[in-house]
């Protein structure tokens, strides 16, 4: 079992510099096909709407945005933009578009399309879950209530677009790299209307070849893609409705190439134990943290000492053991692969004696009774029962309630909904690899509203101010200073302890022997399960 230190090192390798070693990139052949299995239906491939971990990367293969990430890393690079310029005060960005980019319907991309696509996401009629990400663009307040037209976006000429912000935003380039900013052609959207999600037309390396509802989705190579070396594969077939256990059986028989839902927990140990699978399983970090959120507005969790006691009561190593080592114990809100992670901070050690002492100090010498909610998909019921036992050992008698995901989320978003929630299976995986993404919706005051995702209802105005200041540091030279500021924010969060971070999930991607690529693209932090454009087939002709 890999120790956290080793994994951290692996993550560091992934982050630093380019992940594609020149030699491997040359070995990559073009051509061939791949089969990926999923259990759930693909909901939509509309970049303005798709927001689940399944379609997120599929959309990335069909569409492009102004910015993207170096494959296998969290480093930003230009994509549809050939170059960009930021004004000295950080309030305006000018992007020059790459020439000769074509949509799948043949039309060439212009700056108008960029403006249209972003405005479409902001338009309330689209009902896009990504609307809020563009809050820093000038004119957002009015546009988000009216028709999406942003005064802050100007088409300077067919290849230049200028975006003005209402405040300096250090995450802006990340926002230009997420799916909600991807370019869509107006005529295709108007032609299909609400069904654009089932008839996607983008500029990406792949285009949609077939969609048989409930059975399969097929992508095929876009021959006019602006980067002629991509994609490597000719064809990807996504098979839907496949149970993960059966998918694994089929992979072992050579019928399936990638397990979209990952290695089923039931077979994890035995599959990893087989020597022939050594090269087929790639392990990597994820921008994920699993935590227990405590409702700071509900007694007795309004007392910081009680919350800290909970942190000390949970035996994280034991929990990780129960899930067969598929995670690393977490000490803080940010995961190890996130910039801004505090490497030396150890968090709260497992100390039941101290926890009991703290509880007694807070007025609960005999503990108290409470409730903890969790999602009902495996392994979360197990995890929450393990946590339950740990809490009972210090006197906190927590009744477990496992519900369908939508119900837990709804309870978390209501003030009297739940005293404690185990976040597994629901939150939090980063939308983009920047520390601010772990703060705003889930720890910031803005998220502590009815229906919000700040399930601990934690609202620290000082920290909010600090966070905003950090996000205003747009000068690339100040990057380290900004990260240090974020680090401070999170350390303060740990001091206040609205959460008890438990573990960061590791990713294990299993692929068949005929699919190859640099390890990094199999555990690409931004693409799940793999970076579709960069994997290649050994048996391509």
């Amino acid at each position, binding site marked *: 079992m890999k120790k956290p230190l080793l994994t951290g090192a692996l993550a560091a390798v992934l982050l630093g510099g380019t992940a594609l070693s020149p030699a491997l990139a040359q070995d990559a052949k073009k051509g061939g096909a791949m089969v990926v299995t999923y259990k759930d239906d693909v909901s939509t491939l509309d970049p303005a709407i798709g927001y689940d971990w399944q379609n997120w990367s599929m959309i990335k293969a069909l569409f492009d945005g102004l910015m993207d990430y170096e494959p296998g890393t969290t480093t930003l690079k230009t994509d549809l933009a050939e170059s960009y310029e930021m004004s000295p005060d950080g309030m305006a960005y000018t992007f020059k578009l790459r020439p000769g980019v074509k949509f799948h319907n043949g039309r060439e991309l212009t700056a108008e399309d960029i403006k249209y696509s972003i405005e479409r996401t902001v338009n309330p009629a689209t009902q896009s879950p990504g609307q809020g990400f563009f809050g820093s663009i000038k004119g957002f307040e009015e546009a*988000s209530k009216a028709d999406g037209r942003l005064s802050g976006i100007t088409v300077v000429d067919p290849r230049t677009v200028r975006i003005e912000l209402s405040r300096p935003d250090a995450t802006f380039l990340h926002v230009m790299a997420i799916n909600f900013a991807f370019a869509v052609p107006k005529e295709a959207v108007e032609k299909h209307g609400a069904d654009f999600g089932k008839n996607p037309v983008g500029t990406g390396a792949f285009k949609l070849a077939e969609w048989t509802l409930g059975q399969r989705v097929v992508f095929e190579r876009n021959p006019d893609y602006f980067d002629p070396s991509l994609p490597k594969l000719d064809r990807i077939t996504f098979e839907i409705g496949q149970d993960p256990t059966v998918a694994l059986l089929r992979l072992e028989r050579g019928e399936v190439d990638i397990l979209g839902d990952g290695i089923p927990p039931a077979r994890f140990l035995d599959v990893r134990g087989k020597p022939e699978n050594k090269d087929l399983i790639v392990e990597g970090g994820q921008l994920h943290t699993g935590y227990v959120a405590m409702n700071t507005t509900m007694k007795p969790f309004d007392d910081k000492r009680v919350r800290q006691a909970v942190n000390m009561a949970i035996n994280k190593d034991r929990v990780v053991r129960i899930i067969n080592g598929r995670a690393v114990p977490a000490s803080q809100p940010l995961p190890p692969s996130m910039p801004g992670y505090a490497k030396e901070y150890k968090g709260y050690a497992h100390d039941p004696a101290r926890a009991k002492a703290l509880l007694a100090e807070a007025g609960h010498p005999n503990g108290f009774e409470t409730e903890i909610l969790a999602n009902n998909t495996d392994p979360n019921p197990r995890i929450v029962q393990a946590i339950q036992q740990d809490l009972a050992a210090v006197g906190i008698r927590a009744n477990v309630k496992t519900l369908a995901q939508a119900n837990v989320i709804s309870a978390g978003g209501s003030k009297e909904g739940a005293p404690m929630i185990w976040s597994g299976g629901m939150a939090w995986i980063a939308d983009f690899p920047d520390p601010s993404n772990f703060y705003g919706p889930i720890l910031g005051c803005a998220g502590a509203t009815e229906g919000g995702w700040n399930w601990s209802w934690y609202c620290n105005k000082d920290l909010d101010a600090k966070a905003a200041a950090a996000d205003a540091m747009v000068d690339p030279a100040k990057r380290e200073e900004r990260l240090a500021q974020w680090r401070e924010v999170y350390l303060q969060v740990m001091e206040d302890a609205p959460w008890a971070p438990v573990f960061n999930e590791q990713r294990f991607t299993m692929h068949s022997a005929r699919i190859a690529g640099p390890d990094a693209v199999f555990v690409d932090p931004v693409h799940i399960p793999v970076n579709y454009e960069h994997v290649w087939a050994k048996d391509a002709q």
Partner: protein
Amino acid sequence: MAGFLARRVGGALLILLGVTAITFALLFLVPADPARQIAGRSASAATVESIRQQLGLNLPLWEQYGRYLLRLAGGDMGRSYIQRTEVASLIWSRLPATLLLMLGAIVCELLIGLTAGVVAAVRRGRAVDNAVMVASFIGVSAPQFVVGILLLYVFAVQLGWFPIGGYGTFSHLVLPALTLGILGGGWYSRMARSSMVDVLRQDYIRTARAKGAGPGRIVMVHALRNAVLPLIAMIGLDIGLFMSGAVVVESVFGWPGIGQLTWQAIQQVDIPVIMGVTLTAAVFIVLGNLLADLMAPFVDPRIRLR
């Protein structure tokens, strides 16, 4: 006959109306706010409110229901909140697979159940009878997931006689139908057996025997016809049940049926889809029971349709 059918159709419409009302009311009780679900994690209150208005969720319950019925009458089942696709096309795309599996399963159930049940009844009290009984209980107690994976592993992975799940040809249908057939066969065999035993004990059978008719003829002609009646009712029930309940088998074998759609919709509280599949299931339940009632007089002519 015409009167009978007319009354049944009228009853069916009332039932469908009742089902939509109950489902609508239940969905209202489930505390998941669709506007928030659609709006996503980073949405502002204004966005959520705007979505709520667009979907008509801020209207009073009875008005929402009325609108739904009106659209339904025009053939519009609405759009899935999660997928944004039309519910009707989601259901329609999965209907043929579901019907095929239903047919295959019923055939398997009958083959296994009738054969085992009749044999057990005729050899009542002997080893065969006990063996069939134990087998039936095993068939009913065994979790479908396990049965399915076992069949898949032995016959598809190891022996390679069938494809490992999937949809499209007859050989894709065999294993999933068999899995369902084992469970159903357990029920059918017990029912067939007990029914046959009861019939075989009746006086008119003794009379036939006394008159000299051989055992084969007795069983096949007289007893079977009478014993099969409860099974007719069960087939009618199965038609309705298979429309909603086969999610495990569908998932193990990658069969694109309605069960998976239903289960996903319930977990995600995707209201339009839940309404749609519940309605579809209700239609088949009514049809299935109607069919059983129509078939009954063929089996036992004394039954009159009323």
